[in-house]
Structures are given as structure tokens and as C-alpha cells.
């Protein structure tokens, strides 16, 4: 079993030090696509936290109790992507039925997450780093919190950017990418934290 200290280290390193978007470049599409307003960015972040935490739990259990006993670990990529796609569908159906108010808040963002490479990336990283199930869930939660922090900050900056006079070729995506680059430099500052 992992000690509390170990889990704490995972929590900090996955959410801040090696931030999922700014240093690992996973989940770039929603990061750039759904960051126009802070409200929607926060909604997307909440949905990502929910799905990634759940997906890393499910993927961890499947890896340990299905793939390992049958010695078919090499099937991880195929199994994980199908499980994640199915999981998102189930989560959506379940929320719609059981928790309509939560569904109202997160519903729009859930289908967008199916194609998010961060979900698959976290599941695969958990296996590569040989995390146990609990450590895997912690890593999933921390990673998605890191995603939420990054996307909300970017959305806040973009709201301000809209009032600025930007050279024509840099309007739209380029200036957002530059902003993301500057944010990545800022996040490099967390490297000394651990």
C-alpha cells in the first residue's frame, strides 16, 4: 500500500510540476478550443476531473484483475480506449437518469472528453509508472486538477486579450499559443517544488 507521503508527492507533481497540458501536451484540443470564457472552461474542467478520476480507477482495476491474470498486458491500448469510450457513454446516461442537475452542468462537455487524449494518457502513464490502484486514482485526480487550473487561467487571460489590438496574422490561435507558452514558462517555476 502506498504511504500518504507518496500520494502527496504524486498529487503535487501531477497537478503542478509536470502539468498535463503545459508540459506534457495532452488534452490540447479542449485546452485551446473550450477556453474562450472562464465559465465554460470551469465546466469543462469539472467534467474532465470527473471522467479522468473515474477512468483511471476503472482502467486500473481492469489492468490488475483482468489483463494481468491472463498475461495479456500488451492489449492495454486497445482495451483502455474502448473502456474509456464506453465509460463516457455510461456516465452520461447515468447522470441523465440519476442526477439531472449535475447532468445539466456537465452534460455538454462529456461527449467532448471521449476524444481527449489526456484520459488515455493518464491510464497509460499509471501502468508505465507501475502505480497501484489508489496511486493511479490520485494521479488521475491530480492530473485533471492541473488541467482545470491551466484551462481556467488561460480562459481568464483570453477574456482580457479580446480587448487588445493584436497584429493580424497573430489573431486567433497564434496569440493563444503564445499565451500558453508564457504560462508554460511560469509553470516551470514549480519545478523546484519537489
Amino acid at each position, binding site marked *: 500500500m502506498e504511504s500518504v507521503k507518496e500520494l502527496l508527492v504524486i498529487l503535487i507533481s501531477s497537478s503542478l510540476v509536470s502539468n498535463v497540458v*503545459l*508540459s*506534457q*501536451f*495532452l*488534452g*490540447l*484540443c*479542449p485546452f*485551446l*478550443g*473550450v477556453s474562450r470564457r472562464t465559465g465554460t472552461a470551469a465546466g469543462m474542467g469539472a467534467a474532465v476531473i470527473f471522467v479522468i478520476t473515474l477512468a483511471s480507477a476503472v482502467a486500473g482495476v481492469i489492468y490488475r484483475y483482468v489483463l494481468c491474470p491472463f498475461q495479456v498486458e*500488451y*492489449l*492495454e*491500448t*486497445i482495451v483502455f*480506449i*474502448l473502456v474509456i*469510450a464506453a465509460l463516457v*457513454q455510461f456516465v452520461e446516461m447515468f447522470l441523465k437518469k440519476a442526477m439531472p442537475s449535475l447532468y445539466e452542468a456537465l452534460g455538454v462537455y462529456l*461527449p*467532448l472528453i*471521449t*476524444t481527449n*487524449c489526456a484520459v*488515455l*494518457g493518464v491510464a*497509460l*502513464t499509471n501502468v*508505465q509508472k507501475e502505480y497501484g490502484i489508489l496511486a493511479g486514482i490520485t494521479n488521475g485526480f491530480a492530473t485533471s486538477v492541473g488541467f482545470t487550473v491551466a484551462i481556467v487561467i488561460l480562459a481568464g487571460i483570453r477574456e482580457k486579450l479580446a480587448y487588445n489590438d493584436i497584429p*493580424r*496574422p*497573430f*489573431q*486567433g*490561435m*497564434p*496569440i493563444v*499559443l*503564445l499565451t*500558453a*507558452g*508564457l504560462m*508554460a*514558462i511560469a509553470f*516551470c517555476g514549480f519545478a523546484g517544488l519537489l
Partner: protein
Amino acid sequence: MNRAGERLLNGLVKENPTFVLMLGMCPTLAVTTSALNGLGMGLTTMAVLALSNLFISLLRRIIPDRVRIPAFIVVIATFVTVVQLLLQAYLPALNDSLGVYIPLIVVNCIILGRAESYAYHNPPVASLFDGIGMGLGFAAALTCIGGVRELLGAGELFGRGILPDAYVPIRIFGQAPGAFFVLAALVALQNFVKEKLQKAGKPNEKIGSGCSKDCMNCSDGGCTKRFYDTKGKKKEDDRQEPEDLTILNLDEEEK
């Protein structure tokens, strides 16, 4: 075969997945710390793309329309696993430096895009060459970006010192933020060229991208909608007209 050559050229220049269609940005940013890494990733993706295009094209009459996306994903994931095992066995150094991004080729939208927009509607040989052409285009683009970052960040190219010792390397280009800056410059350049073309009155419609929009707008509804609608919900008939027609039309307009 003329058609094969046309597909190769199309992938390399006319519809270059990175520079023109702006697809597959996650690996483009993540693994281009050096020219060699970019080349390795590009060629790995090319192998998967060519093989999955070939097989999806061979299976195109068997795969039911409603479950085509999950079927594509299974085919692609299988080839990714095969390629990953081969790399682990024969090129362990490359495998270590690319790490988790090799299994993540599965979610690269270039591959799913080509399966959906080309291989599913066209015969095997043309699809194979389409895959090779697109893959080569991707590899060339990744090598270029990796080369620029390596040159600025370390003063080297493919691991050999190129610039004189007086050059002080800008280390940041080898690290994560550099990737964003290089891509920003690239997109700005693309916008600039587009604007010039528009002034000259030339058409610059994006043609035949699987996601209908580029990667940056993916989540706004491009390819995610496809993913989603196919699974048990009401399916919109969003199939594009065969791509060759569009290209022919454009060619005529340019003449």
C-alpha cells in the same frame, strides 16, 4: 501508377497534415524536442497510418456504417500495439524517448480522419498510398519543427553541432514552452500566407480533412460530433462527397 503518385504528393504538399490541415497537434508539440525524435515519431505514425488505411479500405464493405468509428479505433489500436512491440524489440532507445506518445498515436486525429474521409470510400491501393503520403507529410513536418527547435535550443541538428560555439543556445526552445512558441509562429505564418492568397483571389478552402475543421477547433464540434453521433444516437448523414471530386474541381478553378 499515376494515382498512387498523386496521393503521395497530395499528402506531402497539398494537404500536408501539419502545415495545411493542422491535425495531430498533441504529438507535434510533445515529441519535437529534436529532429531525430520528430523523424522517429513521424515514421512510426506513417507505418500505423498506411497499414490502418489499407485494412480499413479492405474491410470497408464489411464494416457496418453505424459502428464504423469503434471499428476504426480497434483496427488502429491493433496496429499501434504491433508497432509499439516492434519498437520495444528493435529500437529501444527511440521507444524510451517517445514514451507514452507511441500508444497515444491511437487518438491522433490524422489517422481517424484519413480512415473516415478517405480509406472508407476508396480502393485499397490508393488508400495505402494515401496513408504513406500523409505519413510522409507528417514525418517531414515533425522533422522540420524538431530541427528548428534543436537548432535554436541546442545549436545542433540530428545531434551534430552546426552553429559556431559563439552561439549561445536558447535552452527554452528545447523545453515545453518552446513548442508553443514555434507552433504559434507557424500558425501566424500560415495565416499570413492565407491572407496573401485571398488577396490574390485564390481559393484556399480546406479540403478533405477528416475533422471538417482543424484540430484547434476539434472540440467545438468537428470530429467529436462524429464520434458521438455514431454510437446509438440519431445519425446525421455527414459523409463528405468523394474527395477526388473536390480536388478536381479546385484544380479546374486554379487553371
